[in-house]
């Protein structure tokens, strides 16, 4: 088959602008051929080059004393956790593929992030995910479609993670109409490794052989990176071939074979997974990092379809493949290990000193491009920004002005049940029950609490614990992206703190609309600056992450959704603290005060359908101080359970801890001068509910107060299966079973 001629239409179809094409002509000194045009198009897609976002991403703090591999250097960042051990983690999106093919889209999202981690030499030990869908209740075509998407995505994640044997230990699922037709699927993985096991993705050493290992190359996922870098439209369904097909069994073999090979560090020069842009990206990036060239022969690439053109082979995103630069002389060792696992290991080329990536078919050169320029000289855009029209007006909304008095006790009681039963706030057990969250036998705190906690067995029989939490409130971010993003960092850190951990680093997944829309790019910039400021305050460097733009449906852009996945370290077993009530007759302590802010709250949205107002204030200094104080009392062993107050306010936090523990409570807030509705449902930050044995309450309150943190005993846990909150004018009382039914049944009731 003859390659098509390079016409302006073809260039445009590849998402390359006329200016970018001029730049290509300059770099090559000639016209590209069809294969080269394809290579440039994927390498310079937003997904691979971050051309629209790179300038902003430089604002993130990336340095710290625990950093072993920092953001942008390799496939994923690596953090020291003490002794000889380290963790490697990253989050990545698979939004567009999941929109058109939820099962495979989500499955391969998990597969892709796993490869990023084991490419670094780490054994993946925990998955998290952060998911967004349009509303799932009701009979509208959108709701039906959203249910199909939720079911498919969850099944896809379960399929891949369960099969490969990496526990999915936590995450979040939120529903909002802005995600209609454009769900978000962000998958996080964390791996563990010794410092001396860190592997790099650089091709060096002239003459060293380049091996292709893993699955064979097919036509699936052709140019998926380019597909992910444009708006989703009605026609996107026709892009289904751009979605890859995942095979977790193959990946399990690849994982074990790679880790077995890495036990022979002398044999391996560099490793790079073939993810986005497949063979193209892996050859060019390794060569670029190594300051070298690579020459490969496509005839030697294992293929599962016949008649594939060089263009197709180079742009395929078939899954479960890796590129390994092997030290000359160790070829047989590599072949032996991969043969044991019944995997292909084909020597497809070698490292050169030309600085060029040369692709041949037999003796014929089909592409010849400079490695470094392609990887590093991608276009860089500073997009126009403009605050969204009408935002100020939305922010100026006042709940108290529209609703001058609190509803009566009966109605508040009813609202409490409704909130517990709204899908975004309700139990996600229907979701995480489908994930194997215990394989590998290290999961200490299972999904459903504030942060997931896993054990790490260290050299010499010791142990450490890692806490992980992913958070983002898209409603906050839509109303004030800067503040909402700060809160995403604060909340994910707070969740780690509640489990007893010190936050040590994070990875972010920035999900936004089309960057060419100045209002969207304003949100993006505000968000990155908010995240950066908060990460500095918490001293949690960003170790890497992912940007997903062009998330919109025909009606609107998605709410800005900068998902923050925080990783925390717990040094001692005794510091691990659950979020559910542990026993009756413990005192309940409210830390951080009663709060007052109703803007952008879950209550406003879920009860009144209002998405307005200013999100709660985020005073970073105060938040850090608050978290340090809570962590300190946890470390002293005084705290039996700790749960942060976030969506839905104090009433939700209390009920969640009670339901999870199967324990009632009697809380007395009658001394408050605050309106009852505000008292129950406000989302002022920097607050938590702790339980403590009565003998220690005094000392706990004293310590928190000494640290300058408001703390008051507000009641106790009870044997009785009733949840009671005494207010100034009346008492709310709900049987545990009723709130639990609303909480547990919300999602199964519509998903069956």
């Amino acid at each position, binding site marked *: 088959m003859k390659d098509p001629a390079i016409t302006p239409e073809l260039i445009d179809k590849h998402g390359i602008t006329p200016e970018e094409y001029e730049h290509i002509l300059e770099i090559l000194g000639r016209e590209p051929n069809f294969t080269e045009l394809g290579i440039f198009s994927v390498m310079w897609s937003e997904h691979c080059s971050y051309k629209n976002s790179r300038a902003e991403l430089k604002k993130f703090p990336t340095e710290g004393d625990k950093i072993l591999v920092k953001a942008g250097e390799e496939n994923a960042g690596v953090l020291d956790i003490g002794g000889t051990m380290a963790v490697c983690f990253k989050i990545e999106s698979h939004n567009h593929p999941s929109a058109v093919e939820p099962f495979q889209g989500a499955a391969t999202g998990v597969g892709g992030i796993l490869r990023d981690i084991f490419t670094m030499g780490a054994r993946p030990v925990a998955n998290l995910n952060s998911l967004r869908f349009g509303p799932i209740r009701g009979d509208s075509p959108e709701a039906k479609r959203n249910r199909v998407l939720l079911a498919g995505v969850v099944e896809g994640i379960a399929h891949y993670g369960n099969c490969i044997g990496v526990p999915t230990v936590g995450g979040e699922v939120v529903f909002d109409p802005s995600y209609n037709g454009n769900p978000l699927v962000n998958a996080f993985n964390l791996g563990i490794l010794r410092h001396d096991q860190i592997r790099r993705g650089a091709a060096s050493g002239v003459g060293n052989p380049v091996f292709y290992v893993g699955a064979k190359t097919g036509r699936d996922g052709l140019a998926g990176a380019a597909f992910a870098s444009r708006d989703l439209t009605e026609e996107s369904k026709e892009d289904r071939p751009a979605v890859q097909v995942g095979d977790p069994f193959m990946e399990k073999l690849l994982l074990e074979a790679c880790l077995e090979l890495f036990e022979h560090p002398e044999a391996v020069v560099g490793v790079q997974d073939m993810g986005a842009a497949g063979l193209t990206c892996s050859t060019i990036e390794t060569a670029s990092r190594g300051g070298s060239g690579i020459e490969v022969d496509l005839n030697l690439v294992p293929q599962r379809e016949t008649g594939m053109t060089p263009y197709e082979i180079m742009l395929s995103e078939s899954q479960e493949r890796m590129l390994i630069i092997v030290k000359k002389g160790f070829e047989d060792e590599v072949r032996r290990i991969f043969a044991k696992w019944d995997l292909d290991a084909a020597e497809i080329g070698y490292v050169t000193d030309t600085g060029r990536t040369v692709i041949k078919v037999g003796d014929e050169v089909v592409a010849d491009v400079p490695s470094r320029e392609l990887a590093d000289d991608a276009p860089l855009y500073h997009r126009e920004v403009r605050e969204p029209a009408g935002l100020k007006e939305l922010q100026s909304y006042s709940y108290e002005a529209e609703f001058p008095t609190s509803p009566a006790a009966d109605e508040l009681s009813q609202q409490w049940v409704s909130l517990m039963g709204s899908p975004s706030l309700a139990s996600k057990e229907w979701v995480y*029950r489908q994930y194997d969250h215990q394989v590998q036998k290290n*999961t200490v705190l299972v999904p459903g609490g504030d942060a997931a906690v896993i054990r790490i067995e260290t050299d010499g029989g010791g142990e450490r614990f890692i806490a992980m939490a992913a958070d983002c409130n898209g409603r906050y971010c839509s109303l004030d992206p800067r503040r909402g993003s700060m809160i995403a960092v604060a909340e994910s850190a707070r969740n780690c703190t509640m489990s007893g951990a010190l936050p040590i680093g994070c990875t972010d997944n920035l999900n936004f609309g089309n960057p060419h829309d100045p209002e969207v790019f304003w949100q993006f910039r505000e968000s990155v600056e908010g995240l950066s400021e908060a990460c500095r305050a918490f001293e949690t460097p960003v170790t890497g992450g992912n940007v997903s733009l062009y998330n919109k449906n025909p009606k609107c852009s998605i709410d800005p959704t900068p998902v923050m996945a925080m990783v925390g370290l717990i040094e001692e*077993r005794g510091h691990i603290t659950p979020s559910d009530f542990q026993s009756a007759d413990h005192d309940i302590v409210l830390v951080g005060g009663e709060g007052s802010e109703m803007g952008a709250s879950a209550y406003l949205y879920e009860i009144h359908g209002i998405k307005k107002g200013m999100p709660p204030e985020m005073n970073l200094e105060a938040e850090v101080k608050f978290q340090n104080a809570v962590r300190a009392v946890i470390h002293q062993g005084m705290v039996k359970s700790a749960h942060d107050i976030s969506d839905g306010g104090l009433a939700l936090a209390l009920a969640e801890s009670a339901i999870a523990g199967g324990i009632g409570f009697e809380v007395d807030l009658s001394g408050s001068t605050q309106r009852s509705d505000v008292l129950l449902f406000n989302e002022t930050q920097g607050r938590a509910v702790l339980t403590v044995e009565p003998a220690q309450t005094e000392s706990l309150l004293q310590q928190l107060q000494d640290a300058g943190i408001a703390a008051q005993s507000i009641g106790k846990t009870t044997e009785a299966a009733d949840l009671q909150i005494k207010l100034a004018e009346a008492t709310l009382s709900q049987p545990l079973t009723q709130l639990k039914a609303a909480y547990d049944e919300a999602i199964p009731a519509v998903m069956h």
Partner: protein
Amino acid sequence: MKFAVLQFPGSNCDQDCLRAVRNVMGQSARMVWHKEETLEPDETIIVPGGFSYGDYLRCGAIARFSPIMDAVKKAAANGQAVIGICNGFQILCEAGLLPGALVRNRDMHFICETVTLRVDNSRTKITAHMHDGELLRVPIAHGEGNYTVDADTLKEMESYGQIVFRYVDENGEATEAANPNGSVSNIAGVCNREGNVFGMMPHPERAAEILLGSDNGKKLFDSLLSA
């Protein structure tokens, strides 16, 4: 006691079983690759969970053709204890070492949660440290754990005490609601007539430490050690 933990391509609870036996129980254990052909006559054999060969055809259907399975059959005939957990249970059924088969869960979803088991035969090698009717909290994690067997065989199994564990509620009743996957007669674990080959869907190795929520599974290993 010496343990051999089999490792098929796609096994993913192999390391967990090895660690439970070695670190928690303090016993000697080795990993046996599926292409090997021999097992020692004094070894207790664990066929671990996972997705052998991706479970693509039918769970356990391909693994039973692995070279090591001939050695497992010989060991079983020799009276050695063989314990299949989750995917291992499926493999032993496919290999004809245990009666019945495991099909898709009743609700078609993968289920991961901690369930309550009742010991229905405390006279076996894996339940010697338990008593009849004892309740254990042990996690399950499977998509195809719905045990099925024909009525005649079930009757025969009952009469030989081959039903070892059942899914029950907190009162020890084998109710429909307590049955997570639709297994016939709430069956969670069985043994062969000779009482040396066992299969169970729940994961005792995951319930061997209080830190991870339950150490009830440890009793199974304690029982084996005292057998």
